[in-house]
């Protein structure tokens, strides 16, 4: 039952993160949504620690996840600062360049 509670909470937080991301109209809220999604990933890692022989690997996976997600968020924070300096706003509607043309 504890595994189910942890995983259900993880999925609920992930869904709330998705809803926040699709409803975001500025980059700061998008950053917050991404952090929520990474939080749900951390929660989903807990059952990995329940296998005794797998504990060191689970800890390594947790360390990798924490460091890589922090790196990604750091790059996004830098992008937000640069975008704000260039366009004086962080609202996504004002972004008219970049991306792929369909």
């Amino acid at each position, binding site marked *: *039952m*504890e*595994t*189910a509670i*942890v*995983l*259900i*909470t993880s*999925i*609920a*937080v992930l*869904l*709330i*993160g*998705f*809803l*926040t991301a*699709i*409803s975001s*109209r*500025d980059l*700061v809220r998008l*950053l*917050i*949504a991404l*952090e*929520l999604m*990474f*939080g*749900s990933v*951390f*929660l989903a*890692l*807990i059952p990995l*620690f*329940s296998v*005794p022989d797998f*504990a*060191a690997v689970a*800890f*390594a996976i*947790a*360390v*990798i996840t*924490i*460091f890589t*997600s*922090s*790196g990604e*968020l*750091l*790059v996004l*924070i*830098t992008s937000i600062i*640069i975008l*704000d*300096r*260039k366009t004086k706003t*962080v*609202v996504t509607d004002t972004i008219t360049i970049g991306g792929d043309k369909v």
Partner: protein
Amino acid sequence: MDTTTLALLVLSAASILSASGVLLSRDNLYAALFMSITLILIATTYTLFNIQSVFVLIIFIFVGAIGAVTVALAATLRYELVKIPVEKVWVIPMIIVFAVIAFTLYIYSPHRITIGYNPEILLPSFLSNYLLLAVFLISLSLVIMISAVMYVRRES
């Protein structure tokens, strides 16, 4: 239902409620604060299972560094939504998917989480097997931080 399961239920409910606060708050500053609370509650779940090292990592790196910068960014670039632009139709399939997944997990995952985590054994084992990985990740983080600072200074 024992104390651990009850505490886990309370922590999970608090995590979902504070995450809902992120979605429902219109001001980004309050959304960032709710997000920090959610992450602290998620980290606290690790201490419930006696995994303090991951709790420290999440609190120091994710909440202490990235979370604090996000709160500062949200306070500086404060943007308040007039109306949360979520199509209400999206909520219905999400609730259905969540209900199906939750039911499946509840039926097929009746196991208890028994953590065989012993820091006196695990940390030396981790350091002997993954020392190079840890050094590489810390170096990568430093390179990203220095690159970010240099890029922002060059752009300004």
